[in-house]
């Protein structure tokens, strides 16, 4: 059985397929997979040559067999795949030893969201189609030359959900040690192990020498066997042709070294030949050196991994609508921009992971959670902690999350564990276990017992104890003062047992004055007791500073590097305050009007406050803000200022509006609009739409931004849900103007559709008329005028 050999003995994979195909005549632009049908005998020969060289695995010639890529072929996908497998089988039947056929799955050839337009589900289908056709005929799947960890996730799920065959996953790294989409080796290992792959490794792009540091990095952390398939050296471009210069003898030396380092499977990629594989076979004779790395708790985004390694890991708590009116409102209105900003503020303040909770009554939690998770991972790289009591929301969020998430949470109730632990297992989630069942036990020992129950139960699902982080539950000092100590004691006991702990710190201070003081003190004590993951407000500088200080005193922050970096700024900040003081005097000469004209974002809030001392908010809008904006618009049209300056003024005005709006009452408070805006399906170029949005917002309009690559139905749904006063669509190219037209047609199936404005590089008034739009907005200022006409 193959499974039993993995990691127990060194196995040998075959070498390059492409290089062999070129040798028998493959030309640039030919579809290599068609050779499965047109050159069957040659294909069998290639497989045989690798088996003769000693390979234990041959790889089917199906690297490009995604339905997307094979749409170019005149042959059916099914035939390309089945003939590819059949050729390998013929070769296999000719040898008298146990060898395996690995079905080769390469990248789809289309980038996933948010980089490209392919959805995660779409990617899943591209892989599933192949799995269905191959699973009964092969011994394993190899997913290789992958550059995007999100695509890897889709592939693994597509295999795992449709068969039980072993999965080998191999990623390609650049010389800078990252994949093309920014994944580092540690993150790759953590995510792929979490998803339950059987073997992981690297191939292509570099030669063995250049791969060496990456291989080492992976072996240091991997707990499953590793495969290495290097190129025959770095590709060299000579007069426009790629050549590989490594000899099989040199390769042999590296192959031995890889095996000694702990690599379990060795093969070759571009430029390698049966000669190389013969050397790999020789090298494999020395026996296996693989030992799984020590298990550590790690969570990842697609490009960053946080390891629980003694240092306190800070979890930002602010993406949680409980008790936050503004966030609740933002989620209900679908204005996710505020949610994203709140997340970015926390990341910039030093949060290592972010809790995400979107539980608002009346919201489809699973749907909104997925939307928010996707939006967050589009712009930031801290790992996320998915926080919900709904198993459905957790499952959905884990599925579409790019990385290995924290899951908040389970408790010791059997029904809860039964619902959520399988999700954690399937997606590799590190799960938070609340030490409560029907109620919160008062004593530390009782909480520790519940923790043990959860860890034990998780084990039965195959979840490692390190992947359960225990929440010893912070009680409120104003209500249960005596029990606060019990929490700390429970943390101490869990630590002694070798488990990680988490606490929602600020619970301790509810109902008491000067809450920050209690929070800081409790946090310090909890960290001293062994707390790993405090869930806190990272925007509370004093609280964050407490952690900095703690890390110095406990010798975690060696030579106080982080402390000095952050706390030295405190002194600097004081100087800034003084400079700002000076600025304030200068600001006497400055007024809100000129501030907007000049786009002085740092000063605008103060100047708006100054205006508010003598004027009503609405008067300021009418007498200062709008005239200033009009002047800015006029200057832009005359060429006195150019685009970045227009946007600077617009963003400055938005800040003024924020201050003014907080002072407005009742109806005056509500913005004009809303206006729904979207970059249409198939188009990921949204900078133009974003520019128009900022300018519209600077005029006080509420914009609901649906983002880019927006399906027709999403625009229709937004029309029905928000009843906008206008809809703005943008498209960059003629091809996506087609989507624009479809969107307009779909909207016009309904009554009372508001005016539709369109814009984008290739649009013109004629095209706008042709596709049934009501207005053509040539640029941001023109769009403002249109909206002013629509919403009088």
């Amino acid at each position, binding site marked *: 059985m193959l499974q039993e050999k993995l990691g127990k003995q060194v196995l040998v994979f075959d070498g390059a397929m492409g290089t062999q195909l070129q040798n028998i005549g493959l030309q*640039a*632009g030919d579809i290599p997979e068609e050779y499965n049908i047109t050159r069957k005998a040659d294909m069998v020969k290639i497989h045989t040559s690798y088996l003769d060289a000693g390979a234990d695995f041959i790889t089917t010639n199906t690297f490009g067999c995604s339905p997307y890529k094979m749409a*170019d072929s005149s042959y059916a996908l099914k035939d390309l795949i089945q003939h590819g497998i059949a050729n390998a089988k013929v070769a296999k039947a000719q040898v008298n030893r146990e060898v395996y056929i690995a079905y080769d799955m390469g*990248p789809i*050839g*289309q*980038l996933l969201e*948010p*980089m*490209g*337009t392919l959805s995660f589900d779409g990617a899943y289908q591209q892989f599933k189609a192949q799995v269905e056709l191959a699973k009964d005929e092969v011994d394993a799947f190899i997913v290789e*030359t992958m*550059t995007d960890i999100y695509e890897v996730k889709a592939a693994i799920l597509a295999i795992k959900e449709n068969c039980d065959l072993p999965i080998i996953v191999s990623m390609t790294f*650049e010389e*800078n040690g990252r994949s*093309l*989409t*920014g994944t580092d080796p540690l993150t790759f290992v953590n995510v792929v192990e979490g998803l339950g792959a059987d073997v992981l490794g690297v191939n292509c792009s570099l030669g063995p020498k250049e791969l060496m540091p990456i291989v080492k990095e992976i072996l240091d952390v991997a707990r499953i066997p590793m495969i290495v398939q290097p190129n025959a050296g770095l590709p060299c*471009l000579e*007069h*426009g*042709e*790629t050549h590989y210069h490594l000899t099989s003898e040199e390769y042999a030396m590296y192959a031995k070294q890889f095996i000694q380092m702990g690599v379990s499977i060795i093969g070759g990629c571009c430029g390698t030949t049966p000669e190389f594989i013969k050397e790999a076979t020789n090298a494999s004779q020395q026996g296996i050196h693989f030992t799984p790395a020590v298990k550590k708790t790690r969570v990842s985004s697609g490009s960053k991994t946080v390891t629980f390694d003694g240092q306190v890991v800070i979890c930002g708590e602010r993406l949680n609508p409980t008790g936050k009116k503004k966030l609740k409102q933002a989620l209900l209105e679908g204005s996710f*921009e505020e949610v*994203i*900003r709140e997340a*970015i503020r926390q990341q910039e303040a030093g949060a290592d992971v972010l809790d995400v909770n979107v539980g608002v009554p009346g919201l489809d939690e699973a749907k909104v959670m997925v939307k928010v998770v996707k939006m967050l991972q*589009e*712009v*930031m790289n801290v790992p996320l902690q998915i926080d919900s009591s709904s198993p459905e929301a957790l499952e959905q969020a884990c599925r579409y999350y790019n990385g290995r998430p924290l899951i908040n949470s389970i408790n010791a109730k059997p029904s809860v564990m039964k619902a959520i632990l399988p999700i954690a297992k399937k997606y590799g989630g590190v799960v938070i276990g609340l030490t409560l069942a029907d109620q919160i036990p008062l004593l530390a020992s009782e909480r520790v017992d519940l923790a043990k129950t959860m860890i034990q139960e998780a084990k039965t699902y195959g979840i490692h104890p390190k992947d359960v982080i225990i929440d010893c539950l912070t009680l409120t000092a104003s209500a249960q003062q005596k029990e606060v100590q019990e929490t700390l004691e429970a943390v101490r006991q869990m630590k002694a047992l070798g488990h990680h702990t988490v606490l929602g710190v600020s619970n301790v201070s509810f109902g008491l004055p000067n809450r920050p003081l209690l929070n800081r003190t409790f946090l310090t004590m909890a960290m001293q007791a062994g707390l790993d993951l405090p869930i806190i407000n990272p925007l509370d500088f004093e609280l964050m500073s407490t952690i900095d200080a703690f890390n110095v005193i406990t010798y975690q922050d060696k030579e106080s590097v982080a402390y000095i970096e952050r706390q030295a700024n405190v002194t600097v900040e004081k100087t800034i305050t003084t400079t700002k003081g000076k600025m304030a005097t200068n600001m006497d000469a400055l007024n809100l009007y000129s501030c907007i004209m*000049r*786009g002085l974002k740092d000063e605008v809030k103060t100047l708006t406050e100054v205006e508010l001392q003598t004027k009503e908010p609405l008067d300021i809008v009418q007498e200062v803000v709008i005239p200033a904006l009009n002047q800015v618009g006029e200057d832009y049209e005359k*060429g*006195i*200022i*150019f*685009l*970045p*300056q227009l*946007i*600077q003024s*617009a*963003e400055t005005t938005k800040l003024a509006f924020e201050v003014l709006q907080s002072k407005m009452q009742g109806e005056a408070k509500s913005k004009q609009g809303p206006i729904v805006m979207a970059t249409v399906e*198939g*188009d*990921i*170029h*949204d*900078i133009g739409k*974003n*520019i128009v949005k*900022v300018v519209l917002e600077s005029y006080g309009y509420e914009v609901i931004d649906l983002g880019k690559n927006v399906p027709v139905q999403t625009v229709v749904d937004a029309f029905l849900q928000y009843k906008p006063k206008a809809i703005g669509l943008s498209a*960059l*190219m*003629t*091809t*996506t103007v087609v989507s624009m037209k479809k969107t307009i047609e779909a909207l016009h199936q309904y009554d009372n559709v508001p005016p539709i404005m369109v814009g984008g590089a290739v649009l*013109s008034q004629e095209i706008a008329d042709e596709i049934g739009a009501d207005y053509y907005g040539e640029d941001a200022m023109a769009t403002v005028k249109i909206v002013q006409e629509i919403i009088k």
Partner: protein
Amino acid sequence: MIKETALKYMGYTNQELDEGFLELLDACVEEVKEVAHFKATYVINEVEKPFTLKKYGIEIASQDLIQALDTCQEVAIVACTLGMAIDQRIRYYNATDMQKAIVFDAVASAYVEYCCNRYEDEVFGVHHSYRYAPGYGDIPLALNQDIYKLMNLHKKLGLSLDASSLFVPMKSMTGFVGLQMDKQEKSCGRCKQKPHCGFLKRGTTCYKKN
């Protein structure tokens, strides 16, 4: 040079620039250089007149290309990219600071041109034509579809191409470079964008005038 080109892409026509903006521009240039991971590749084709790439056997119906590369025997197709991290950064600034997003985006566009020029000089020496990219003049943008497949750019550079023939990562491009020949002045002659070209409206061009 990078800054000059970037300003042009932003629609700059000699407006007064304050210190804050110049600092932002400098910061973006530094950041783009730091984040970019320039990769390039090329193939060489003999040219048969009017304009057929011999190796690939494709004929390109472009008067501009015929005219510009009339005197050369060999043409290189160059493809390059600044990599995905630039796109990620652009997305980040689109969400956090629109002004910076615009400046960063323009600087990145200028930087990929700069890097590609440098690459061509390194590989082909200085005696070669300008780069003529699909989308320029009457060279069809859809030609990127063929180039993408023939040069295997997905594997070589990690590029992906959408239905509009635009690349991801966004700061990627291809172009034809005539070898062993002098540079000829570019012109707006057959450009399809002419009727609604922002550069022309502002009295400039998208390419550099000698």
